[in-house]
Every structure is written in structure tokens, then in C-alpha cells.
């Protein structure tokens, strides 16, 4: 590098504020030093290398970064990593069945072509997992409202809505 562009040594600004965070992600314990301003999504993606959760807007509207914190959906772009100390996080990587096969909801999304580029998919899956858990027999309108905080530019939502309804009926049929 030529001299004007290189780092001028000898300056000592404020040291970053580092904290330790311990949490469980998809059932696995993690503990790491993290700068206090780090968002949860950056922590998941770049520190833990769980890159399945996506960032679409970083301002809390698109929903691509949605994860579950202790079973409740939350925007990981608007949450700091230090806020989830001791929490149980679920991301898209933790949604398949224990044997690695697709969950009922994941399978339904594929059958109903509920994903194209797949970028909104992590947020759709986490949002709908929570929703179907709490609303086992939803109406179409309820499904639409449930995912109205998740933007998808590809699918026009129809395949996602149908997949959620299909998954709900299959889950109900599985229940004793």
C-alpha cells in the first residue's frame, strides 16, 4: 500500500467493551467473548458460523433474521448478543428432525414451492414453527397475518401459506 492509505500507528482510542455470553443454540451450549454492541444475528452468523439466519434489512422490518429466543420469535438484527445471556436460541439449523430429515413444515414448504431463493426462508420457518405450535388449526387469514412481518420478494407468499396449512393438518393427523 502507498503511504497515504495505510494505518497511522500510535493512536489509542477507547478499547472495545467486551463481555462474555453463554447461551444454548439449537440445544448446544456456547460461550464466547463478544463486543457489547454486536447484534445477535452477527454473533450467530460470524462468531458461531451459523449462517442459516439471514439479514435482509437490519432495521426490523423484513423478518429474515427471525429466530426463537426461549421459544418466542424475535428479530436477531434488533437484539444484542449480550441480551440473550443464558437463553435458549433456535435457528433454522435446529428445525429438522433429530435424524436430519426435514420436519413436517420444511417438507411442506418444499412440496408447496414455498421458497424460491430461500433468503426469507429462515425467518418464515421460525415464525411459522412458533405460530403452528400455538395455533394448531389456523385459518388461511391467520397464517397470512402470522407471516405479515416476514417479507418475501420471490414467492408472492401463496406457497408459504399453503405449506403452513398443509403442515398444520399433517401435524394434527400425527397427534394421537
Amino acid at each position: 500500500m502507498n503511504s497515504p492509505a495505510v494505518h497511522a500507528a500510535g493512536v489509542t482510542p477507547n478499547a472495545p467493551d467486551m463481555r462474555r455470553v453463554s447461551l444454548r443454540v439449537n440445544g448446544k451450549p456456547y460461550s464466547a467473548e463478544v463486543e457489547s454492541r454486536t447484534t445477535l444475528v452477527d454473533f450467530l452468523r460470524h462468531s458461531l458460523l451459523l449462517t442459516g439466519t439471514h439479514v435482509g434489512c437490519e432495521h426490523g422490518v423484513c423478518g429474515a433474521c427471525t429466530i426463537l429466543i426461549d421459544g418466542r420469535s424475535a428479530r436477531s438484527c434488533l437484539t444484542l448478543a449480550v441480551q440473550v445471556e443464558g437463553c435458549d436460541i433456535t435457528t433454522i439449523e435446529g428445525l429438522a428432525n433429530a435424524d436430519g430429515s426435514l420436519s413436517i413444515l420444511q417438507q411442506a414448504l418444499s412440496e408447496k414451492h414455498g421458497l424460491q431463493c430461500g433468503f426469507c426462508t429462515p425467518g418464515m420457518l421460525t415464525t411459522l414453527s412458533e405460530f403452528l405450535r400455538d395455533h394448531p388449526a389456523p385459518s388461511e387469514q391467520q397464517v397470512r397475518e402470522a407471516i405479515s412481518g416476514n417479507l418475501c420478494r420471490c414467492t408472492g407468499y401463496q406457497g408459504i401459506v399453503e405449506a403452513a396449512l398443509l403442515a398444520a393438518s399433517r401435524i394434527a393427523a400425527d397427534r394421537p
Partner: protein
Amino acid sequence: MTAAARPSPEPGHAWVGSPIQRLEDHALLTGQGHFVDDLHLPGMLHACFVRSPHAHARIRGIDRQRALALPGVHAVLTWADLPEAARKRVPVLLPNPAIRDPLNYWVLAKDEVVYVGDPVAMVLAESRYIAEDAEALVEVDYEVLPAVSHALEALQPAAPRAHLSVQDNLAGKLNMAYGDVAAAFDPAQGAAHVVRETYWQNRGAAHAMEPRSYLARHDPATGELTYWKAGQAPHLDRKNIIELLDWNPEKVRVIHPDVGGGFGGKTIFYSEDGAVCAAAVLTGRPVKWIEDRREHFLTATQERDQWWEIELALDDQARIRGVRLVMTHDNGAYFPWGIITPYIAVTTVPGPYVVPAMDIDLRIVHTNKSPATPVRGAGRPQGVFAMERILDKAAQQLGLDRAELRRRNLVQPEQMPYSVGFIYRDGKPVRYDSGDYPACQASALAAIDWQGFAQRKAAARAEGRLLGIALANYVEGTGLGPFEGATVRVQQTGRVSIFTGASAQGQGHKTTLAQICADQLGIAISQIDVVLADTAGISMGIGTFASRIVVNAGSSTLLAARAVRSKLLALAAHELGVAAVSMGDAGLSGAVPGLEQALELVDGSVRLRADPQRGISFAALARIAQAMPGFAFPEGVSAGLEDTQYFSPAQSTYCNGTHAVELEVDPASGGIRILRYVVAHDSGKLINPLLVEGQVQGGVAHGLGNAWLEYMHYDAQSQPLTTTFADYLLPMATDVPRVEMIHLESPSPLNPLGAKGAGEGGTIPAAAVIVSAVEDALADQVADRLHFTTSPLLPQWIVQRLHA
């Protein structure tokens, strides 16, 4: 979706034409996709751009000392730091003599910024956080210059100039005409009615959910430069890199991994592409840059700001005699893609109608905004909006049913192939290849029960509800050439690989191409690995836009797979001792009839029809074909079980369709509730109906956003005011209805698949049909004649008009 998805075709059915579940899904559903930002390379630096806060300014100086003093900052680059070759402008992709000042991006601004967000300097740091901290510490001294925001005002003599180097803002103009337009408008010669109006459509970015994402790595030991990009045209990216870095073409590799949506916005080679590649070379470290959403609002290319002054002449039977129009295109600050968008827009106007004469004046205007380049639909939504709206106005003026006026003017099936009169962007006359437009319109009207609407409207009115109905037609040139190639290769494992330069942004091209290949080789798609968009995989390519991939790459895959099939048969015949038949050149000739009778391809083996126990696997054949020392190939068989084809269509093919909508308007809020949305379309032969339906449904959603939600607002200084998803509204699941679809399949005679392409037809007429239906719902709510002329038609504008 109406097609019931399956993992494989029903017994006795081919892969092509079946609604097959996608190969892509499993990884994406389990968080195992590979998007650019998922890649972490050792030693990687993170980039952040210092951007102009002004729409137009001169750069007087840049002070980067405070930024450089921040620990973790590696460099702050400006134009003067770039390698010599990168200090010129990015080449214009499609230069056109009609552009007087074909200005394109600088890699970093040289001494003038021309839109808000124009990159001025690039910070490279150990993390994105530090890079953003440092970005705020770079001080740029600007001399603010007057900016132009509005294309019509930009043409006024006293208007400020968008660039210091141009004499005025008219960047280019073009006249196109055919037929005798003067006669068409002459009352003495039969022009019974003339209808006039001016229409406007607003711009917005593509807004794929994944922002632009770039990563470059330079290996100084080998000179290799590898560039991972969330893109749409890998080989075009490569061309630009070679030019801007003056690089050895054999040492540049561009890869598009999983891409989170494109819709046009990722086709462009932007300033940031050049800057990221240059920075990797200058620093010797991998460099990653991920756009944030605000940057997408400011700097990703946008589309649709156009003003259409259109006149329509009709005879006393309401038959179109001619169209005259002046179209003003807001091009923004630069010309990355020449004038392709306005060109497509105006040539789309005649659509499915017989228009005997036309005259077009096209004015292309510089403004201080992010450049206008194709966004899903690429000019066609504007052309269709102008034509369909003026037809609605004509119907209103003549007291004729909107569907009947259209019916009288449609091109008839016996007129196919039909020459419109224009030359298209591929240099060939616009010539519709196939389709039955009257049947298409009729099927949409039947589906939505056009005849029964008056009764439904009256019944709703009795309950105090306002219903409207509308239809809109389009014809879309797709499958643009000149080519997109494919290589099909049987590997020594027995698996089959397909390589193509085409990239995918969610369309499911891997599945589609695998289906085409599977039928030819008698295997399941799970036996096929598709490698998209890697310039190391295939030597030439163009990219994914203009709904061109199935026609071009699909046909190439078909032809290459056929050639590989012939090779498999010939080699197997030799190995199995099948009686010699004249084989000719099995590498090129397609099916070999004698061998086809004796042998069959089943589950990855070639076996004797007469004795299915005797066969030889693809794996064994591939090992032989890839050379066994000392083994001689049988006559007519060449090395390797592979073939590459670059299918080149003779001309574009033409899809068509009709959208019909029934909706309810709330006059108090301007809110719209769509009750039914019908799309009848002809996209030629469908390779995978499931995926086509996904394209149509998603395309309609995009068009609905354009129709009444998405509004990119700039102030008079060209400062963007809508730069978050809270200000600029994308359609949500509660806004988009289920689209009812009718597929008509007129195979295109222009390619061996009969395909046409389906990526944009959902978007193209959506704004026209929604605005027409809103107008229909509210027509009797105002004392005067109601005619809406803009897209979007925001709810608050509806309310304002009702109380005007």
C-alpha cells in the same frame, strides 16, 4: 399452487412437463445454503463505503487521517489509489448511438458526485463494525451543486445540469415509426375517435431480500483473482473485471453461489464491484462487502420513472388506426445498460393488438438519481400501462365494454407469425412466433365471470361496498439470444454434471435443467449435479435476465444431453459387442437409430433391450471414455462422455397473457382488497409447472407492489426520502391474493423445447389492471369523469381524488 408437487414424474411421464419438487430446497430449508455473506475466508477485510450525502457536488478534498488512526482500519481508498486501469469509467454494456453522453460509473468518484450514495471512498477494516466507525470519520469537503430530480423539469432550458460535463440533460433521443401515422389520425381518412392522455410510473429498486454481496480474493502467487458475487451475469462481470484491472482473462474466475433474489438489480456491474476487486488486489487480502438495505435504496439501480404522452386513433368500429407517443425516460445519473429499458418499453406498446401505424419520440434524460436499469418487467410494465390505460379511456369515451374494445383489436391466431413493424433489441423485426390471444383473453374473462360482474357489483353496492373489475393484456419478448451454453458430462462416478453460465436467483434452474437432461439420459434428477454461474465451468455465458434461461440454457442442455446419449450408446454398443451399425459422428448427430433399437438407457446403465441382464454402467463407460491407456476408441467416438452446446435462437420468442382482477375499494381509506386475481398466460411449453406457477405468483406480487404500495420518493434536491421498509412498502402476505392461473401452451417454434420463459409476465400488466379496477369501483363516486394516470396509485391519492 394448482400443480401437486412430486419428487419424480408419475409412471410413464417424462421429467419435462411434470411438477417436480426442487433439488435446491433441502439445503435452503436446513440453513445449509451458500450465500456470499456465508463465506468466511482467512484474513478477510470488510469494506464499507463513504457515500455522497448530496445528489450533486464537487469533491474538493478527502481527509482520511482520523479514520486511518482507528485500530483495525487497514486502508481508506479513494479514486487516486486505484490501479491505473480502474481509474476509468466502468464500460457501458450496450452502447447505443442514440446516447449523446454515454456516462457510466466510476469505481470511486473522481471529482464529482452525481447521486446520493455515489461512493467516494472505501474503508477496509478487520470487521464491518470498525469499517463503519471509520467511515464516519472520513471527512469529505463537498462543494454542493444544484441537482435535478424531475425528468420533465430537467429538460427546461434553465434546469441545472446533472453532470458538469454535459451541455444539457437530454442524454439521448430516438424516433421510431412504422406505417402512415398522419393518415391514421386524419378524420378525413377514417379516424373517428382520438383519445389522449399522459401517464406516469414511479421508480423503485428490485429489493431482492438478499442485498448485494461481494467477495474478492487475489492469490499473488498464481495471479488468480476469484470473485464471489450475488449476481445475475457472471461472464459479464468477468469481462468488466478483466477490463478494469487489466487482468489476464485466464486468471479471473467469477462465481455466483446461492443468490437471494435478483429481479434485475444484481445484473449490473456497479462501482462497488470494481472497488471490491481492486481492493483485494491492492491489499493482498480477501475483501468482502455486503450492502445494507439503506444502501440498496440509495444506490441499487431502479426502474420505471417514465412519462408517457400517448394518443390513440380509432375508426368508427373502435378499431385501432394508430398510436402516437412521446415518452420521457428518467435515466438517473448513468448508463450501465445503455437505453435498453426505454427501448423495450416503447416497443411493448402494441402488445397483442393490431396497431397499423405508430410514431414514437423517445427522450432520455439525465437526473441526479441512481441509474435506471431493468427491474422485473424491464420497461414493459410502463408500455403496457400506457396502452391499457388509454384503451380504458377510449372504452369510457366510446361507451364500450373494456373487454369488447380489446377483443375487436386482438391479433388473430391465423395471423401468426405476426410482424408488428418494429425492430426489437436483438436487431430482428418484432415478430410474434405463436399464440392465441383471443382464446387467452376469453379464458381469463370466463374464469373471473366478467359477464356476471354487474350483478355482483349491484349486490355489493346494496351492502354499501364498492367493487371494481378490470382486465389487461400483454405480449412479452423473452428468450433473448444470442446464446447461453451448457456442458453435460458423465463423470467416472456415473453421476452426471451440467455446467452453465446462467445463474439462478431462486427460479430453480438447477431443477429445470436437470429435468431436461434426465429425460435424455434415462436417469433421475437426483443423479445430476448442476453447476451454475461459475466462469471456470464453461467458457462463455451471458446471464439471467429477460426470462431467457430456459429457452437458451435449457435448449443447450437438451442438445448437449442428446449428444452425450449418442456417445453412451455408441461406446456401450462397442463394449457389449452389439452388431456394428453405421454410427456417423456420434458426438454430434443426436440419436443413432440403429443403436436406439438395440439398446436402452435405464437408471445409469446402457443395456440390451433383448437381454436386460446385459448392460454396462455409465460409470464404466465414463472411465473408458476418459481414457484407458492403450485403449482405442471405436470409430466415430471421441474422447470423454461430454458435450457442450451454445444454442442460439433465431430471434426472441413472445409470451402473452391476460390478467383479470376483481377488487373492493374502501373510499374512506383508499385501501384495496383483492377478491379474485386471474392470470391466463401462454409461456410456451412448461418444463416444470410448479416452478412456472411460482414465477407467476411472485411476479404478480411484485406488480401489486408497483401498483399501490411502492413509492420511491425524492425531494426537489433529489434526496431520497423513502429509504427503509417502513417508508417504502413491499407487499406483505396480507396484501397478495392467491393467483388463479390458466396455462395455455403454444410451443414456440424457435427452440427445440418449445419454451418461452415465464419470469416477468406476472409483473407486467399488474399495475394496469389494478388501477383500472380501482377506477371502475369508484367511477360513480365522483361528479366528473374519473381516470387515474399514475402507478403507483397510493391509497392517500385515491382519497384525495375522491374529495377533489
